[in-house]
């Protein structure tokens, strides 16, 4: 497979804080790549550099180079970059009642000149893209009325209309329930284009990405297959949690599970304690104590007791 994107020694510093540090990797055509790592690792910053949004690479604090098909990315115009990269953001609400068709038409922008109007070919493209994501009937629906998963699918369809070679998704499964998480990622996998996405859920990343890039504190810690990247030692070190690796029986994918150290200790301590169901099923009776206290402090009562006795 030919190299589509080459990232060479990419570093980014903002006021002494390292955002990205000497990042090097290549992306081949057709790969589905997941960028993983803890919060603040630099995942979204790396995506921004890859798409050179708002000429971010011209920023004085950024060093290194990004090549698209062996040509420096900074030499491309914003419109040319939009013809190569399609970006699907985490959340895309609009205060105005945009229809799905309006959102889809935005995807035509990088291929249109000034004053251009929509033609029959554009409409066919939009219908085709919507049918690919399974939303053929949603053309005239209000975008804001769709569920989170449907909105993501519309934006992926918009990316298809954009006809770019590389699809970039920033946390595509955020705000989605389990069903939609799998649906969206499965859809992305079936598109047969190069996909780069940031994913928080390591098990989803492992299931749907051919290759993972693990970032930590702006550094690229590991780059490889899910099985080679998601090792318990490495993940324990980065996330500060105990980690266990396993192979899922059904999917065959590498899966990881995390647990806190306290949880472990708690489990151990439970076994040494008396089990809950063996405890006496009565409330501690505090009344005799109070009575005894009153009696102890009140000599008259004592006397009376003595007398009674």
């Amino acid at each position, binding site marked *: 497979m030919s190299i589509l994107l080459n990232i060479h020694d990419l570093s980014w510093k903002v006021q002494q804080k390292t955002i990205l540090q000497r990042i090097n990797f290549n992306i081949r055509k057709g790969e589905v790549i997941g960028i993983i790592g803890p919060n603040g690792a630099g995942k979204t910053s790396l995506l921004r550099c890859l*798409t050179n*949004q708002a000429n971010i690479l011209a920023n004085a604090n950024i060093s290194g180079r990004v090549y698209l098909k062996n040509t420096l990315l900074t030499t491309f115009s914003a419109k040319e970059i939009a013809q190569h990269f399609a*970006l699907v953001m985490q959340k*895309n609400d*609009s205060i105005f009642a945009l229809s799905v068709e*309006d959102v889809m038409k935005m995807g035509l*922008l990088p291929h249109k000149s000034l004053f251009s109007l929509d033609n029959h070919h554009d409409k066919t493209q939009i219908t085709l893209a919507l049918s690919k994501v399974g939303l053929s009937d949603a053309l005239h629906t209000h975008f804001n009325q769709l569920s989170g998963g449907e909105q993501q699918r519309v934006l992926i369809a918009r990316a298809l209309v954009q006809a770019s070679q590389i699809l970039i998704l920033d946390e595509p499964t955020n705000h989605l329930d389990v069903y939609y998480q799998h649906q969206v990622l499965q859809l992305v996998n079936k598109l047969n284009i190069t996909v780069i996405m940031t994913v928080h859920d390591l098990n989803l990343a492992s299931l749907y990405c051919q290759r993972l890039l693990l970032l930590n504190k702006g550094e690229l810690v590991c780059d490889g297959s899910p099985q080679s990247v998601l090792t318990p030692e490495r993940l324990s070190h980065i996330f500060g949690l105990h980690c266990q690796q396993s192979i899922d029986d059904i999917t065959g994918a590498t899966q990881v599970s995390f647990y806190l150290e306290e949880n472990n200790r708690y489990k151990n301590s439970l076994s040494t304690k008396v089990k809950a169901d063996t405890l006496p099923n009565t409330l501690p009776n505090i009344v005799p104590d109070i009575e005894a206290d009153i009696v102890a402090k009140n000599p008259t009562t004592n006397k009376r007791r003595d007398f009674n006795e």
Partner: protein
Amino acid sequence: MNKVSHILFLLAALVIVSAIAAITFGPADITVKQLMTCLIGHCQSQVTDVVIWQVRIPRVLVALVAGMGLAIAGAILQNITRNPLADPYLFGIVSGAGLGATIANISLADNITVALPLAAFLGALFSVIIVVFIAKVLKSMEQLLLAGVAVSFMLASITQFILYFGEPFATNRVIFWLMGSLARVEMSNFYVIASILFIAIVAVFALHRQIDALLLGDESAASLGVNVDKLRLLMLGICAALTATIVAYCGGIGFVGLMIPHIVRQLIGVTTLKLIIGSALIGAIFLIWVDVIARSSLPHAEIPIGIITSALGSLFFLFIMYRSRVMH
């Protein structure tokens, strides 16, 4: 032809009908038949000819382009800021024009006919330069809108300070001018407003896809190849020039830029091209008829147009809001 095209054609026809009908309203009685004869150059009365060509037609045409201009400026600003409350007046344009008019009234009382619109335009331009400068420093849209409000209040307070110590006659003149009127407009005013309106419409037609892309956020627009900051500054500049020119000739006409785009969104759609065409047509119809009310409701006087736009506009706006709530 779809529903939107039908509505637009109907509105375009209504603009033409409104403009012709509006010429027949006013203190001098002019029938539609007389008007038609004069329009084709066979006017039987000299007075009617003068009233139609030198008073009524300039007035109706200025109402038409001013209504279009204010509504378009509002529509553009609302889409580029993604804020349904954005309005040309929110950016201090009227306050700036008011300050310019005040200074002209106080210091150049002898030649006020020429000086007032010019000073108002320069004042509006001054306020826009301040807001654009702030826009360059502040990247956030919310902060830009708040900065516009702050500039507006600052300039209004300077105006009020000058008026408080100014000569009462000049003060009255400024206050009446700020209420808005089309009583003194000429054909030359129409040409100036129409040319800037034409530039604005061409710019919007050229960049409608870019403006649409902003509707889903700056980051989404940037990923589609839009230079968000440049686009926003360009559109802000165009809206400012358009509003400043209209305000300079017609005084303060509030609410058109805020209200008309809302009606268009309900009727036609939210994307820029539909919104701009719809706003231009409804804005024109609205201001033509408001001016008719302004000049024909009282027997020997005119009501300032700004008072009617604000009164009618707010009522109609509340009605639209109520209707949409009921429909949902």
